[in-house]
């Protein structure tokens, strides 16, 4: 079996970050055997890379280093489709690289060493640093890659990684064992949370995921990108699929008055009993200060879900509700 495939899915970044990503792969201390560039640009915007001087040089350098390469034109169905092709291409390991990332030269070597010296590794990734992001130490300290923390804490890979650590899921660019798990092809073309679903699948199948000290820069280019489809409906649709597939606990959203919070609090013991993990998005955190439950702001909840679905008044109005507010909360959440 061939050893390492590197896959890059790209859209709208021919003239910005894609050459940087390719250059960083060429400069790895350990090289992949093959590179596939999944070109997800619209048909009328596609180019033959070899016609551009920068790519002519880069592709020649790739060949001179003994790496084979190919371009596959994608169908704009989302990154998960391209990654699934790479996943089933017949290689043992796949290094997935975003088209706006720059890998430090030791990334593949470091990830590969871990993947091949530890038993049952599913996926392994390093830190993914966006140069202009400025996180606080406090946020770094509470960061987590446990699946149940996904709504309440920042991703550990967004910060420098000091020690190797076992995690539930990985983000952005990482090395994974190919052909074991499948990408979720039900997701929309936006492919929101596709890598979380994919890497957590390894855990469900008894493999281990790791984060390890090595650095990839994530430029988060403002234009283009494989998830460039800007459609709120797709985001909500993907979030629904994510929640159905992953037991990340129950999210309750209280975008309402303090009285509504207090009535909700009355069903909290039952909720705690029922769900091993709860996250509350609230306007009045004081109401829940006696509980050891992660609280997030409504603004944060809006980033991860359509909070309208949790509007208790809409819920009651839609059902011509005649019973108590407490019963409405029970029906919505229990």
């Amino acid at each position, binding site marked *: 079996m061939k050893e390492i495939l590197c896959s890059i899915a790209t859209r709208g970044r021919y003239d910005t970050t894609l050459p940087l990503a390719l250059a960083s792969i060429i400069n790895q201390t350990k090289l992949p055997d093959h590179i596939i560039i999944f070109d997800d640009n619209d048909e009328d915007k596609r180019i033959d890379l070899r016609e551009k001087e920068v790519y002519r040089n880069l592709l020649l350098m790739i060949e001179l280093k003994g790496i084979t390469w190919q371009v596959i034109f994608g169908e704009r169905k989302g990154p998960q489709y391209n990654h699934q092709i790479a996943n089933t291409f017949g290689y043992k390991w796949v290094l997935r690289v975003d088209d706006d990332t720059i890998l430090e030269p030791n990334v593949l070597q470091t990830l590969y060493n871990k993947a091949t010296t530890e038993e049952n590794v599913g996926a392994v990734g390093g830190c993914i640093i966006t140069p202009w992001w400025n996180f606080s130490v406090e946020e770094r300290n509470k960061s987590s890659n446990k699946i149940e923390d996904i709504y309440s804490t920042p991703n550990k890979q967004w910060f420098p990684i000091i020690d190797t650590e076992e995690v539930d899921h990985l983000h952005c660019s990482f090395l994974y064992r190919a052909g074991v798990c499948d990408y979720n092809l039900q997701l929309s073309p936006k492919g929101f949370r596709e890598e979380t679903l994919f890497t957590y699948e390894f855990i469900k199948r008894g493999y281990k995921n790791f984060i390890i000290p090595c650095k990839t820069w994530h430029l988060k280019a403002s234009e283009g990108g494989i998830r460039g489809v800007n459609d709120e409906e797709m985001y909500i649709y993907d979030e629904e699929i994510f929640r159905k597939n992953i037991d990340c606990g129950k999210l309750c959203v209280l975008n309402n*008055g*303090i*009285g*509504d919070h*207090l*009535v909700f*609090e*009355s069903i909290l013991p039952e909720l705690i009993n029922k769900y091993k993990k709860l996250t509350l998005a609230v306007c*009045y955190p*004081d*109401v829940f200060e006696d509980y050891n439950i992660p609280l997030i702001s409504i603004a944060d909840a809006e980033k991860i879900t359509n909070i309208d679905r949790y509007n208790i*008044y*809409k819920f*009651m*109005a839609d059902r011509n*509700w*005649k*019973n*108590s*507010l407490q019963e409405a909360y029970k029906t919505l959440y229990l």
Partner: protein
Amino acid sequence: MKIIIHPFSRKLRNGKLNPKVYPHWISLVKLLKGYDHAIVQVGEEGEEHLVDDFRTLSLKELKRLILEYDTFICVDSFLQHLAWRLSKSGIVLFGQSDPKIFGHEENINLYSDEKYFRQYQFQTWEECEYIKEAFVTPEEILKCINNNNNNNNNNNNDIC
């Protein structure tokens, strides 16, 4: 009796009077004072002071006060829910909202007539006109207070 009053609901975004606010507070407070009840008003800065003892409290402080006092009189506001969580009952002055949905049966829920209940109970209060007649009179409230002295645990207390 030691009574907490919470006379006002939140201000509306359109500047109109919130239809949940009881229209006869001044008369009611006058009547209560005639019976030597000790009254403390809780609310937010900027609200009209109906008694000398006006307090703006944190949630924690308010919980302590509710436990310390005998009962409360409030509009359909968060105070009824907080007291309910603390197993303290009182009188809630409803107007156009249905106490079966927004009240607690442990309280005495007073309203004038079901005919004033809003057809759409879940629309915003900004969409709703103020109806003074939707509320009971101060005398009816006083009667309940005096009858209900030391009788805080009755069920099915909706009264109109």
